[in-house]
């Protein structure tokens, strides 16, 4: 558990950045990204397939090497797909950033500790997998610099943001994956539904 405000950090990363392709994990991450830049055409929010968001983002990064792709997910979600750190590093896409919002708890299911909450070092795992940029973001004084590295550094970038355990209110957003897929492809590729 940290001291940073999840909504504030995600807004700094995504606010006004309409060009970034975003994949969110389950739970709060989708609402944080929606609060940051609206129910956006280029947000794809997972509401199942826990652990899969970083790999969806890897697929996007490989298909669109000139676009920044950022996945935002909770620590429990990252742990479920922890093997994806190894998979990402088989391809090393320099346009991909993984942002973990780490409160050390499964907040939605009753605040049980995650492995991160027990002390497992997620950024250290990313570093060991070979991520050229991997860091914790815990100190408010580092926010400007580290947000810029998430947005711009040649990656893959891994950022573990130490957030408070607060659950901000939800914001209106769709959970319909068909709708998200159609609007995503229309906005990015100009492809209409078949």
């Amino acid at each position, binding site marked *: 558990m940290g001291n940073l405000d999840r909504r504030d950090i995600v807004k700094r990363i995504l606010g006004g950045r309409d060009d970034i392709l975003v994949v969110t994990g389950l739970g709060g991450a989708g609402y944080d990204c929606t609060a940051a830049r609206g129910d956006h055409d280029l947000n794809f929010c997972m509401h*199942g*397939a826990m652990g899969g968001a970083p*790999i*969806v983002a*890897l*697929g996007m990064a*490989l298909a669109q090497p000139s676009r920044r792709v950022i996945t935002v997910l909770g620590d429990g979600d990252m742990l479920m797909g922890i093997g994806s750190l190894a998979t990402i590093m088989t391809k090393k896409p320099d346009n991909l950033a993984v942002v973990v919002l780490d409160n050390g708890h499964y907040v939605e299911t009753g605040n049980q500790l995650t492995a991160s909450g027990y002390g497992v070092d997620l950024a250290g795992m990313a570093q060991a997998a070979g991520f050229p940029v991997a860091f914790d973001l815990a100190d408010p004084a580092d926010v400007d610099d580290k947000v810029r590295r998430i947005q711009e550094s040649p990656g893959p970038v891994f950022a573990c943001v130490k957030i408070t355990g607060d659950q901000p209110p939800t914001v209106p957003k769709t959970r319909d994956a068909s709708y998200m897929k159609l609007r995503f492809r229309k906005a990015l590729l100009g492809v209409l539904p078949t």
Partner: protein
Amino acid sequence: MAAERSWAEETYEVFKRNEIEIVTYVPEGGVKDLIALCDADPDMTLVPLTNESEGNCLLAGAWLAGKRGVFLMQGSGAGNCINNFGLNIAGRLPLLTVVALRGSWGEGNYWMIYQGRTMHRIFEDIGFKVYEVDKVEDAAPTIEAGLKMAYNADAQVAVILSQRLTGTKEFKR
């Protein structure tokens, strides 16, 4: 007369005809020739997975951003995928997975047999169109039919290759 082509060569040509640019897999001996053919093609990106549960997610992201792929795995990996297939089911995202079945024809490892018995039904129960292939000459045409269904209809398709086609692993006493 040209030498007879293998099912792997025919399937590689099917991939090229259908604009497949990404091939992702957890390796399986039965499809190793196909993996090698794709790996030798500089226009194809091969992504080896840590766990089969990643395969449909990778191809979902690639397709959302404009590229088509195929997911190859061994039958024993299919069980790892069930929860993440929810992404394809919920969003009707296209997927073709080619599964080299274990636990069916002459299997020598009992740990594999329950999946050999239930694979077809599991895929069907979660909403996939399932093709089973027993004869080598049917492999490439069936994979092509599956690809067209997946990418023209946003369907979820599994092509299950029998060990009669991919070969049965030998166990020695």
